[in-house]
């Protein structure tokens, strides 16, 4: 959006549409209102004033801090959770490869013992990445397996243990209780574990992402977020409201289906992509 000509109503409407269609939700309403007010007040006059204004407004919400995942403690235990199909298992492959590349000895725990072929899916990744995986047959108790995996990670000199869990909707009380139990049990096996509880959010999800972040946080004290599938046309704007209301660190973005398709989250780059 460039040009020195005066802003007209249809351009302002277009900007409002851009904000909404990026899934900003309530933030779209307030930022669009700010834009119209600024235009009326004369502080935003032309086409080329718009994007810097929006970036500044959204930047105030997103902040400028990068809050990367810091590996401390051994074994560092990373518990991965999220709703069905959000990209947990694939994201674990990406995280594992990334961490192995940084020199850490990584182990995987296939604690989705519910879904058909979930263990097989993670096993394919473990084999491709040449790393140990702790698993059991489908139907096994996930917390029992989590406990054993943590004990093995400690005994086998592992630096990072990544625990995969079954997809679950935050509306399913019993499944959220199961996740809470997995978290507690990890702490019993290794004091301080899990050191990171990473919630995987599907970047194509709309306003429900906010409810997911709230409910998962309440159930298992989420310490970090990863947003997947932003290699499509979805912009992941729900992150703005999540940032506003929960202040959870965003660690990574998922940008594809291979183990290399991961990027550290960086607020300015994220906002830039919103306007693509």
């Amino acid at each position, binding site marked *: 959006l460039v040009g020195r000509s005066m802003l007209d109503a249809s351009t302002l409407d277009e900007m409002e549409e851009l904000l909404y269609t990026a899934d900003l939700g309530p933030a779209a309403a307030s930022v669009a209102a700010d834009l119209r007010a600024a235009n009326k007040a004369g502080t935003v006059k032309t086409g080329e004033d718009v994007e810097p204004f929006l970036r500044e407004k959204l930047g105030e919400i997103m902040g400028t801090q990068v809050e990367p995942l810091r590996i401390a403690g051994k074994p560092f235990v990373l518990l991965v959770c999220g*709703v069905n*199909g959000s990209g947990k298992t694939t994201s674990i492959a990406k995280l594992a490869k990334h961490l192995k590349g940084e020199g850490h000895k990584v182990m995987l725990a296939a604690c989705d013992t519910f879904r058909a072929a979930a263990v097989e899916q993670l096993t394919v990744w473990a084999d491709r990445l040449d790393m140990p995986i702790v698993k059991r047959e489908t139907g096994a108790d996930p917390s029992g397996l989590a406990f054993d995996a943590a004990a093995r990670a400690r005994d086998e000199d592992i630096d990072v243990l990544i625990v995969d869990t079954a997809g679950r909707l935050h509306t399913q009380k019993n499944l959220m209780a199961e996740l809470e139990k997995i978290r507690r049990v990890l702490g019993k096996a290794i004091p301080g574990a899990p050191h990171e509880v990473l919630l995987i959010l599907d970047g194509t999800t709309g306003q429900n992402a906010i409810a997911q972040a709230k409910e998962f946080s309440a159930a298992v004290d989420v310490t970090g977020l990863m947003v997947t599938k932003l290699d499509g046309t979805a912009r992941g704007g729900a992150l703005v409201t999540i940032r506003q209301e929960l202040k959870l660190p965003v660690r990574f973005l998922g940008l594809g289906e291979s183990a290399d398709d991961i990027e550290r989250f960086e607020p300015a780059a994220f906002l830039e992509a919103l306007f693509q």
Partner: protein
Amino acid sequence: SLSQRLRKVVSGLAGRGKLSESNMQDGLAEIRAALLEADVHFRVAKDLVERVEQAAIGAKILESVSAGEQLVKIFHDELVALMQAPDDEPIAFAKGRPTVLLMAGLQGAGKTTTSAKLAVHLRNDKKRKPLLVAADIQRPAAVDQLQQLGKQIDIPVFHVAGEAPERLASLAVAEAKRTGRDTVIIDTAGRLHIDEGLMAELGRVKSAVNPDTTFLVCDAMTGQDAVRSAQAFVETLPLDGVILTKLDGDSRGGAALSVRHVTGAPVRYAGWGEKVEDLQPFHADRLVSRVLG
């Protein structure tokens, strides 16, 4: 809820419940806000609000005492009319040859699980003899996943190692003819609508077996992107119906309205859970109540 919000708009004025032109506009703004909160696409929300306005003007509700209530009812009825599936059967069963069903959609929408659910429903409720086809050859253990589901439900799963999806589809139809299976359900890999290679692959599968019914499997929590992806899918292959999944969550499901409005494809089934029995015929009024909050 929207009714409460509209009631507030209407009650804040003189004339005990009569709607003026200006608070009709406030009422319409509330409706638009409710649609956007429910993940309905920005432009679809605009179109729907205009429709409601026309219907409200046509119904001359401004003169009535219960205008606020009437506005909600008009809105509700417009949405139900939009979402109502036509009276015909969701699946056009072929005569004298296997019926071919194609499942398509974005990554993680629920295609594989829904393929199994549909197979169970068609066997149990429609007395069909389904054959599932594992045509996702790229996701790790995708074939395994469908094969395990097939075992659970005692429905055969067709797969041949090393064959491309379009070839698998043709071979499966031949297998169905040979073994007396009358309905072929083809599970495909999740794909991005902007992935030209994968969209072309889907086109090749369609050309190879000419599906009788193609379903877009859509996650009920999808946001504004639902329109972009649905539009792109419908450019590659005709979409006969939509299956909305994960309705057992608390997402409002506005994406379904957007997809229907933009592609014309009716929602035929709803996924209400992870088990194979968790598939129901779609009820427009249930979804509309959910969208209206």
